[in-house]
């Protein structure tokens, strides 16, 4: 016994460095890539009374100190790729560890410091995550170059020059491509040259992006939020939050946004923040070893990511709570708050937006709105809901086609074609030529006396101006041009985003949907404004909108439209409203935002139940047990458990009478991931291998004993292999008559992987998470075979 313990300790020291990173787990797991057959149905037959503890989990007080401290073999207690973690086991491991450290802290000051540092490691981790946030504005090479320094974009290039009012966009330091090459910027030839350079730069950026993704980190494509949701609910995807994914995603995100594609960067920034969180977890033992604790850190990292992306810290915390996280205890709430706070502070000190303001689309108007305007706001909400449902349906159909047909075989070509189409269609219309963030800023902006854009070309009456508070005016010709250009931009954006989201470059969804909503909102706002101006004597307007007053603010309609469309696609409510008013600084407009968000959610939910991220989760077949839905069918546990009536009887491992050879045969001939007396497959493999090497006298005919006190054997038989330490002490059991509602609730709330089914104390079968998911899919008349993973 002593020899065994010391051997194990020595083993631990030797191979700790290698067994701690994610990359190593790939090799330990062995045949983990062949998951099409990895059915999670360990069969059971006879009554199994003996349950034991998982590695080092010391359930009984009689275990010695050495047993307790003994770190298990490397690889024992870890998970294979594309498998679900066992939340209960992870939580109990952490509790034991904490208890262990606390009891030792009384022994010496060093141990006391260790316990204090352990407690604070969580906060320190949050600090580090927050500090790693940052962002910059890349130069806009598609349209021209800044001669003062190529790293400046257009706005920063013209920082110092004095320009005339109407020509404020032109300054001598900024040269468009035709000006550089030809020497002048006018004429048809110059226009064609600009067009060509625009398309060429766009293609080059997107080609670089997709080649980098394909060559270095294939997991860096897409938005990342569906996969992070699944990871946070307990799934393992090794390498998804790794170093290479982090680097490649950051680099290619900037390239993809610069190439003019209709995508945003918020979703990928959440992924990047979670990668940072995951990498920093390796610095602290508390989080490196324990998958459940690590997910707490990842929830906080997601909050920090949104905080950096939008400059919206509170919205980030709420987004993490509502959309991304699965288990979100109060402790995680405080820690996310702290991480978002530090991230916002770092962002402010780096000052990327150049005006010491945190918010992306700062609006400066504070006009009041009237109750009657709720009618157009609700109309915008309905539009948002309809567009959201339409977008989700078409995007999922297109992605499904990409997964199943030959379209998916040419990812690089697909990206290039979509970029070419986007660039060719976008250049002629000035509203699609500018970057989407600038477009949204311009649409949110109310027209004051100092604005000279086309959208603000109203018929001005200079004699009656009272400072900056302009009344409602008739639209000039500029406004009409802007209206139909915006309508064309709306149609283009609605259709091109369907093909862009989900491509093999990092792509986010927030900014394009906000753009669609902002355009629709501004159009409606200008329409209502003109209606109020020309028909100010109608009864609905005469009460509150007299002639010469400024009643309608089209910028507000754009804000409400943006919130409605974003809500329709993602089905966020509280976090959406908080993000919107943190983005714009418009606290007076909470009620219209809430009304639009609720309306769009109701309309979209009436058409299709899932948001975009849940729809992608279902498309990919991840084992995500939806926490927001109620299970409302009258099935019982025995309808779902395995084995069913016609299945072969269950494979079982007895507690003290099977030999090593028998167990090896069972493990090689089946692919179940666990066996009663519930022991995990990986643990079993590694323990037997190790025992063969390290312990004397273990041969194929040695008996494996899972109990505390093994039965005595005749002296001529080979020595016994004790594997009690890798057993699970407390698998959950339900009776066969338990309604499935309760079983689903248990799986959801406790994060179980499997659950035993008994009848009159006798073991009948087992229900795994995959069975539950298949059952839910069957009940909802969806394809149960789409659940790929367990």
């Amino acid at each position: 016994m002593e020899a065994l313990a010391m051997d194990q300790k020595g083993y631990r020291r030797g191979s700790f460095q290698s067994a701690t990173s994610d990359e190593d787990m790939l090799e330990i797991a062995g045949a983990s890539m062949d998951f099409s057959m990895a059915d999670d149905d360990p069969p059971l037959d006879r009554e199994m009374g003996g349950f034991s503890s998982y590695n080092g989990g010391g359930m009984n007080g009689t275990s010695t100190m050495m047993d307790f401290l003994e770190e298990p073999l490397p690889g024992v207690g870890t998970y294979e790729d594309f498998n679900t973690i066992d939340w209960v086991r992870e939580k109990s491991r952490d509790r034991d560890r904490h208890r262990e450290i606390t009891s030792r802290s009384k022994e010496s000051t060093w141990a006391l410091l260790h316990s204090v540092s352990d407690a604070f490691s969580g906060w320190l981790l949050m600090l580090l995550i927050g500090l790693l946030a940052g962002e910059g504005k890349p130069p806009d090479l598609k349209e021209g170059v800044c001669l003062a320094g190529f790293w400046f974009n257009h706005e920063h290039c013209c920082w110092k020059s004095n320009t005339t009012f109407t020509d404020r966009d032109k300054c001598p330091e900024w040269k468009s491509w035709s000006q550089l090459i030809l020497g002048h910027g006018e004429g048809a030839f110059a226009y064609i040259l600009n067009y060509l350079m625009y398309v060429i730069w766009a293609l080059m950026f997107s080609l670089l992006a997709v080649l980098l993704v394909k060559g270095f980190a294939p997991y860096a494509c897409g938005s990342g939020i569906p996969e992070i949701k699944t990871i946070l609910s307990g799934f393992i995807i090794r390498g998804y939050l790794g170093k290479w994914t982090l680097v490649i995603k950051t680099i290619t995100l900037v390239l993809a946004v610069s190439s003019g594609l209709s995508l945003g960067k918020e979703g990928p920034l959440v992924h990047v923040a979670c990668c940072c969180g995951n990498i920093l977890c390796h610095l602290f033992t508390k989080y490196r070893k324990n998958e459940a604790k690590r997910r707490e850190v990842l929830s906080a990292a997601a909050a920090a990511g949104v905080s950096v992306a939008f400059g919206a810290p509170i919205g980030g915390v709420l987004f993490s709570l509502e959309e991304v996280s699965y288990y979100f205890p109060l402790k995680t709430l405080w820690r996310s708050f702290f991480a978002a706070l530090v991230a916002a502070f770092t962002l402010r000190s780096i000052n990327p937006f150049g005006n010491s303001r945190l918010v992306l689309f700062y609006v400066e108007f504070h006009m009041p709105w009237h109750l009657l305007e709720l009618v157009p706001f609700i109309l915008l909400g309905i539009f948002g809901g309809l567009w959201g449902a339409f977008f989700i349906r078409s995007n999922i159909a297109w992605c499904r086609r990409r997964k199943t047909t030959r379209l998916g075989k040419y990812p690089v070509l697909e990206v290039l074609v979509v970029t070419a189409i986007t660039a060719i269609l976008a250049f002629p219309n000035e509203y699609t030529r500018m970057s989407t963030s600038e477009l949204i800023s311009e649409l949110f902006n109310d027209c004051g006396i100092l604005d000279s854009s086309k959208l603000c070309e109203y018929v001005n009456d200079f004699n009656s101006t009272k400072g900056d508070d302009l009344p409602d005016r008739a639209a000039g010709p500029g406004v009409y041009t802007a209206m139909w250009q915006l309508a064309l931009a709306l149609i283009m954006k609605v259709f091109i985003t369907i093909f862009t989201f989900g491509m093999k470059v990092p792509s986010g969804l927030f900014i394009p949907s906000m753009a669609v909503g902002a355009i629709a909102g501004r159009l409606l706002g200008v329409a209502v404004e003109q209606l109020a101006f020309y028909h100010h004597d109608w009864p609905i307007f005469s009460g509150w909108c007299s002639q010469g007053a400024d009643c309608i603010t089209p910028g507000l309609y754009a804000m409400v439209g943006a919130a409605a469309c974003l809500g329709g696609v993602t089905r966020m409510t509280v976090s959406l409203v908080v993000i919107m008013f943190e983005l714009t600084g418009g606290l007076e407009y909470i009620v219209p935002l809430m009304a639009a968000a609720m309306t769009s959610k109701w309309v979209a939910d009436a058409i299709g139940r899932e948001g975009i991220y849940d729809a992608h989760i279902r498309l990919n077949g991840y084992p995500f047990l939806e926490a927001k839905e109620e299970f409302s069918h009258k099935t019982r546990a025995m309808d779902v458990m395995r084995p069913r009536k016609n299945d072969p009887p269950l494979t079982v491992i007895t507690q003290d009478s099977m030999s090593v050879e028998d167990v090896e045969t069972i493990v090689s001939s089946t692919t179940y991931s666990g066996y009663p007396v519930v022991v995990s497959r990986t643990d079993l493999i590694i323990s037997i291998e190790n025992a063969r090497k390290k312990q004397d006298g273990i041969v194929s005919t040695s008996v494996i004993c899972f109990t505390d006190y093994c039965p005595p054997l005749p002296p001529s038989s080979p020595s016994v292999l004790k594997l009690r330490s890798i057993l699970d002490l407390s698998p959950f059991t339900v009776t066969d008559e338990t309604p499935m509602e309760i079983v689903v609730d248990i799986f959801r709330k406790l994060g179980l992987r499997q659950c035993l089914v008994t009848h009159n104390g006798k073991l009948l079968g087992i229900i795994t998470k995959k069975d539950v998911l298949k059952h839910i899919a069957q009940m909802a008349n969806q394809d149960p075979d789409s659940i790929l993973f367990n």
Partner: protein
Amino acid sequence: MAARGARLCPLLLLLAALAGLGAEAKNSEDVRCKCICPPYKDHSGHIYNKNVSQKDCDCLHVVEPMPVPGPDVEAYCLRCECKYEERSSVTIKVTIIIYLSILGLLLLYMVYLTLVEPILKRRLLGHSQLIQSDEDIGDHQPFANAHDVLARSRSRANVLNKVEYAQQRWKLQVQEQRKSVFDRHVVLS
């Protein structure tokens, strides 16, 4: 403990660099007061920029030369809107240069991996070894890989071997990822 310290080191350096950037003395060129003055009577609108401090950021200090005669100055200035802005051009420059250098390094590495390395390998090791290293290491025996894991701590004394081994392992990982994402379309639609 030492390993953890070594891992923290580059992190701390990065943090120090960022803090240094943020606290750097502001370049005098990086602050400005921007006054936008709309058209007034027969004068067209104009935008004035000047780097003055925040307390001097108003119409009277910034708008030079004043286009309107004395009595009209107040009316003109009332319509002008002056804003104080600052930026850090050093941060922008450093960020873009760091970004471009990382991008350049990645591109060079990609070119090396796709073009140069097979040529080098073929010349040095001969054809047969190349085929063997490209083989799919998808060993399905459950006990064989456990054997690998437990045996790994002994070998690899040579540093070059270690680098080579790490690179091989990384390439295998990327290959697996590429198969899941691009070929089988199992993860990430």
